[in-house]
């Protein structure tokens, strides 16, 4: 097991790989619905490179951050589904 950190996903702590992005961490713990689209569809990452904006989540209280471009950090709080 590579080095891990604990991040808070939707209020619950999860142990995730230290070297992962928030997007990879969310998928790893089974969180596939990152955001709710304008018409109510659940969406997740598409481009993986910070362009499509489908992977937006709230990170440490700041809305609409790109999870695929953000490395995890110990204690980080992530909210999905917004």
């Amino acid at each position, binding site marked *: 097991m590579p080095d891990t950190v604990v991040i808070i996903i939707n209020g619950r702590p999860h142990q995730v790989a230290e070297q*992962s992005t928030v*997007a990879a961490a969310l998928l790893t713990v089974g969180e*596939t619905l990152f955001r709710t*689209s304008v018409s109510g569809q659940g*969406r997740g990452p*598409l481009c*993986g490179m910070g362009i499509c904006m489908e992977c937006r989540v709230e990170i440490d209280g700041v809305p*609409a951050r790109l999870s695929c*471009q953000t490395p995890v950090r110990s204690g980080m709080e992530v909210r999905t589904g917004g």
Partner: protein
Amino acid sequence: MGELRREIFDIVIIGAGPAGMAAAATACAAGAHAALVDDNGYAGGQIWRRANNARHGKSVLATRWINHLQRSAAGSGGLARLQQTRVVGMPRANVLLAESERGALEIHYDKLILATGARELFLPFPGWTHPRVMGAGGLQSLVKSGLPIVGRRVIVAGSGPLLLAVANYLRHAGAIVPLIAEQAHSAEILRFAAGLARTPAKLLQAALLRGGLIGTRYCADAWPLRAQESGGRLSVTLQIGKRRRVETADYLACGFGLVANVELAALAGCKFARPGCVAVDDCQETSVKHVFAAGELTGIGGVEKAIVEGQIAGLAAAGRTTQTARLFGNRDAALAFTARLEKAFTLRPELKTLAGPDEIICRCEDVTLGQLTIGDGDQTFHSLHDAKLHTRCGMGPCQGRICGPAVAFITGAENDLRIRPPILPARVATLAADGGA
């Protein structure tokens, strides 16, 4: 309001993929005070993301350039690395506005080298918005960023050599890849493969890929028709030649070729040779003096083209114009490959009709394809910009980067969506930061 840091360089290179790395290392070796800016935390761009790490499919060429770059950055006066830094605008001549975790940053330059690479072209088909349908490069990048893929079943579909590279990578990472669906005509693929003999590196690459892909079917004349949820997995319907086939998978990794990221070049005022392709001279200089472009920006052509163009741009920006000529031969060969690539993987017209009128085309604003051709009742739109104003297509945070090229392909309309700052979403604080200038 808000602190605005400021950094000043002779040469600033945007994008740390192969073109940007080559430009940075070359300019640095020529003695320039240069900075390499990238929104990722690692050099390598999308194609070489973490490629110096054995776990992520180590590449000899990538390792060589990554080491080269690290040597350039070592010591004082060496190459500056601005990582996880997103360029969002050009507030004044010779100044870029960027954003990072540390806040807003102004980057001043005398010469600018744009090596902003490319993104995948995504085309709509029923189910393409499902969270388990991702870009081919998109899934690869997520796996490189920590997503476990061992034992997962992945269908790779779309078009272009990237599909092979992705499938190869995913298999090495432990995924099961039963099928690669390539939309191009089999005759064109065969002709392209035969032509690879003229570029030894590509032949080597193709051979390696073939070896690595025993057990994976590579089907030309094949494309996805539909993806739908099926018991927590995906059921993917594919057209393969004249037959249809249904596959179950954990992910559908799907990209229809590449589209250059031309937004910063457009903002800088660079002229285009044709849509999606920045015009450059022999030294890779654009129509804007002291602004250079290298790699996918000047035409989708892959790693070899990117490296040689980056080297030329790095030399020219550093004032070593006379030394560029020795690289022209390599560039000519790479450009010839580019032309063959484009011909072989031309998108077939059938792909324009995969999605019906109810399918979402603009994923940011959930605009359907049907809304685009027919407005509120009986209105037809006169351009993509017109359609955007009335339907919100392309008005969301991706600013039409995903839907724009797709709509242009499907409707044949010119992509006239306007490029304006911020070229990527930015915190209001970044745009409000006072540079005191």
